[in-house]
């Protein structure tokens, strides 16, 4: 009963502990600060070189120009933006519905067994290097499209975008599935209790309740598509081209050069003027601003979503 365990003496503070605790704090702070510092420096350097460019090229000309030809010192963003826009839209058309459908299946319909096969499968899809997707687009998708009678060029935006779409499906499906599986089961019960079918519960209760999560997965996937480089470099060709609004379908079959691909080309060109080189930073900054805004939007939506259940 009376085995005396020594009671800690509350007045004896081990020497050096305070210093140690302080050190931990600063080491951790340093790591956190380093990553922010790197990000900030990148943005600052990007902006600095972009500003150099904009002192020589009128920003209005840059953002409204319909031709991009470094060899003639013509720097219009719109053709590059056309390519980026096409990739984003086509891949979204492919990935968003498929990704959500896959997420619905995984979250609401799949048996545990099925899920344990499909989820790792999707993760593998997410792990394939994008250059492989690009080559696949060029070597398999384009010939396939030609075989089914579509008049696609060897390099065309459609094949590239299809592969970008396939690449971002796992992103949509896994984030959307997270959102759907975090919908409380009591809501499903409420739906079934009202005499809803499984499909009605899924579409009328689960998906709306997870809408913000699904939507923010869309935005993240879109910014991924916008920033995708390798696939379009390999498969979409290297000709900046304006969107042809009078024949929208024809656009799909031609090659385009999205912003990312143009940057790669400028960077790896043998001889490029100083101005041509700095245009890289102007394009890069624009790209950064677009994806940054999208991320901001998605955080906003995700935050509102969390609020809903608290």
């Amino acid at each position, binding site marked *: 009963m009376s085995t005396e365990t020594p009671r800690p003496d509350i007045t004896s503070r081990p020497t050096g502990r305070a210093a140690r605790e302080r050190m931990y704090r600063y080491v951790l702070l340093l790591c956190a600060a380093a990553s922010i510092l790197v990000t900030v420096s990148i943005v600052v350097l990007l902006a600095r070189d972009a500003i150099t460019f904009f002192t020589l090229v009128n920003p209005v000309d840059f953002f409204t120009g319909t031709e991009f030809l470094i060899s003639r010192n013509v720097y219009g963003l719109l053709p590059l933006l056309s390519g980026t826009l096409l990739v984003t839209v086509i891949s979204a058309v492919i990935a968003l519905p498929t990704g959500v459908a896959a997420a619905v299946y995984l979250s609401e319909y799949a048996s545990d067994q099925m899920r344990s096969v499909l989820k790792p499968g999707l993760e593998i899809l997410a792990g394939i290097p994008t250059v492989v997707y690009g080559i696949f687009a060029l070597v398999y998708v384009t010939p396939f499209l030609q075989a089914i009678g579509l008049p696609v060029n060897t390099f065309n935006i459609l094949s590239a975008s299809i592969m970008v779409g396939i690449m971002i499906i796992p992103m949509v499906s896994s984030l959307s599935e997270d959102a759907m599986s975090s919908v409380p089961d009591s*809501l499903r019960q409420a739906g079934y*209790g009202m005499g809803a079918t499984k499909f009605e519960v899924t579409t009328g209760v689960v998906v*709306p309740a997870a809408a913000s999560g699904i939507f923010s997965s869309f935005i993240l996937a879109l910014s991924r598509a916008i920033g995708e480089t390798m696939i379009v470099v390999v498969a979409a060709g290297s000709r900046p081209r304006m969107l042809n609004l009078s024949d929208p379908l024809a656009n799909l079959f031609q090659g385009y050069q999205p912003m990312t691909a143009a940057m790669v080309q400028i960077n790896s060109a043998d001889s490029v003027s100083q101005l041509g080189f700095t245009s890289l930073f102007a394009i890069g900054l624009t790209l950064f601003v677009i994806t940054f805004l999208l991320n901001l939007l998605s955080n906003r939506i995700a935050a509102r979503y969390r609020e809903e259940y608290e």
Partner: protein
Amino acid sequence: MTENEMTSNDSTEPTPTTETAASSPDPSGDPLIEQSIDVEGTDATAGETGKPVIESSDLNVFYGETQALQSIDLAIPEKQVTAMIGPSGCGKSTFLRCINRMNDLIDAARVEGDLYFEGKNVYDADVDPVALRRRIGMVFQHPNPFPKSIYDNVAYGLRIQDQTENIDEKVETALKRAALWDEVKDQLDKSALDLSGGQQQRLCIARAIAVDPDVILMDEPASALDPIATSKIEDLIEELAEEFTVVIVTHNMQQAARISDKTAVFLTGGELVEFDDTDKIFENPDSQRVEDYITGKFG
């Protein structure tokens, strides 16, 4: 989920245990009841007023290997409040979920025996659980409004039943019957999640009654609420019994005594020990075990 995994035994010949089964009150070609069966016999437990609308006969429920309900025979009278009391884990919720076949959603659950709703065995192969649940509404222990507007919550059942006419009117009526209208009439577009717990629970009741079911099942509907919200719900339940058959599970003995006409006492092991008029159960139960339970000697 397996809607059809349920065993429905003896589906063709229900055991006649009831008073003449209610002729279907809904003449509009009800999908649930495809044949109406006249069954005869008198049930001792049927009260003076209500004829039985739900009857179980030798109902057994298993979760995997373990049996949660042991051969339950129970007849629930129409348009009255029937309370189910008993210690935790004795199978009250399980019984409730048998009535509208919510047990179908639990993979491990298996039901044997018969449960009649208006004379029709709900475990017959030709019964559609979806249609059944449209006639037998449910209110859960924790308020579970959809993260939609107040209006859309109440309209939900109408919409999935493709009832597109007079939705405004029906929503208003349901909210009034649930004693919530005055509090929310100016903010029907507001999210249901912004309501207080008690208001949310009344909203869930409104949602359940909006489709005009015959029976409302309530599983401890006030257990998550404070005393004032609870007494509102209790008043409401007594009123609802004028139009609906109400079956309520509760842990609160005073509540059962206050609001119910009939009380079923389940005890550990999933046995129905006594079922009678509430007054009888609380004043002079036949079973010593029930008396012990009610007076707090165990459970």
